[in-house]
């Protein structure tokens, strides 16, 4: 492949993936409102278009027409930077996720992944950790007490669960002996080789930590609306608020994508094309996310810290130990 070809193909892939993820985020909000509606015996959005399918577009148009209010005692530079710092890392995760098998298009072999890094999983975890900067800077620079408390709570929660989050996939790495996401998918060719069956404890820890990392219910203390209004983004409006909102959903989707790739066999599956299987698995994972939100009440802050440090972290360490022992034997 020549350099020009590589540049063209990469650019096309990047644009397609970015647009797909943004659409995915928009419709993730629709899915959430619709599902939560039905869980609560309501209908959910149903006025904008058939089944309310145009609702996300209406929301986007509304947000872009809203006035952008910057509080007088905000730190203007960091205040402007924070939403971008939330949004970019959330998007960047999708650069390494393999969406499907290699396909041949117009005589070119095209991998269904923007960039097949040989350290893919390390990249994902590094980029996910960057998300906390956006949140803590938003909370600190808004010049509001609610924002500050929300930002601090959120960062404490994220770093507490990050430790167990990183350790939860260590079992998979010990078995698979690779960082490459493509390789990981290749090792899960048959259903019984899916890592969810070889690493059930790791999977459960991963799911719990992933929910905490993305600040979702029942771990949504940073934005506990009954005490902290909207947490770190209380003072944000218009498109800056939209960036936080998209960032949150992009994080959810990327966590689902990583879970699919690591534990649920990635794009592998019979009959249907690989990309379709990948999307089905991600939507399934997102539905579980929303189901958990609709079912469980919010944890208290001390319970949250207790769960992270005293239960999940030792359990994850133990899981790594036992897994490596079994692999050795």
């Amino acid at each position, binding site marked *: 492949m020549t350099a020009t070809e590589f540049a063209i193909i990469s650019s096309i892939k990047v644009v397609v993936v970015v647009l797909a993820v943004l659409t995915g985020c928009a419709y993730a909000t629709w899915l959430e409102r619709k599902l939560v509606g039905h869980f609560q015996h309501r209908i959910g959005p149903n006025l904008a278009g058939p089944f309310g399918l145009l609702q996300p577009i209406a929301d986007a148009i509304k947000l*872009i027409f809203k006035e*952008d209010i*910057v509080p007088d005692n905000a730190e203007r530079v960091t205040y402007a930077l924070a939403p971008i710092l939330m949004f970019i890392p959330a998007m960047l995760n999708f650069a390494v996720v393999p969406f499907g098998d290699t396909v041949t298009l117009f005589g070119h072999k095209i991998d269904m992944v923007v960039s097949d890094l040989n350290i893919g999983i390390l990249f994902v975890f590094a980029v996910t950790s960057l998300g906390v900067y956006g949140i803590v800077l938003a909370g600190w620079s808004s010049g509001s007490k609610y924002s500050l408390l929300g930002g601090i709570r959120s960062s404490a929660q994220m770093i507490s669960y990050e430790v167990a989050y990183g350790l939860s996939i*260590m079992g998979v790495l010990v078995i698979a*002996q690779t960082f490459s996401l493509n390789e990981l998918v290749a090792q899960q060719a048959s259903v019984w080789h899916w890592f969810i069956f070889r690493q059930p404890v790791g999977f459960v820890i991963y799911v719990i930590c992933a929910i905490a990392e993305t600040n979702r219910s029942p771990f949504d203390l940073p934005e506990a609306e009954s005490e902290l209004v909207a947490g770190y983004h209380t003072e944000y409006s218009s498109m800056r608020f*939209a960036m936080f909102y998209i960032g949150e959903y992009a994080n959810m989707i990327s966590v689902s994508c990583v879970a699919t790739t690591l534990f649920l066999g990635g794009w592998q599956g019979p009959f249907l094309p690989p990309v379709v299987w990948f999307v089905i698995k991600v939507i399934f994972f997102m539905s579980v996310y929303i189901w958990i939100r609709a079912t469980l009440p919010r944890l208290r802050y001390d319970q949250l*810290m207790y769960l992270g*440090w005293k239960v999940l*972290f030792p359990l994850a360490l133990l899981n790594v130990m036992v897994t490596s022992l079994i692999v050795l034997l």
Partner: protein
Amino acid sequence: MSEYLAVLVFLGVGIGMVLFTFFLARLIRPAHPYKAKNQSYESAEKPIGDAWVQFNNRFYIFALMFVVFDVEAVFLFPWAVAFGQLGLYALIEMVIFIAVLLFGLLYAWKKGVLKWV
């Protein structure tokens, strides 16, 4: 190297998209700021004092613990991938390493650091 170039392109497109949306919104949205509107939100009261208040120093301790144990995870990642070639010796070494840190966690636990009052 070309793989990293693709990531860089992705980063560029992401940043470009954000800047474009902000630019577009600036063109069409209204802007009528006045003093009362630009006050920070404090449940419809006038804000009292500074926003940068003192907060619980437990957050600081958790940040310290995070640094210790996240560095542990950083050491574990390459170990996990090279484990197949290194065998029993590497396992024993890692068990000792983790035991030292676990002892630290137990110490913090007994000291009551993990308790949130």
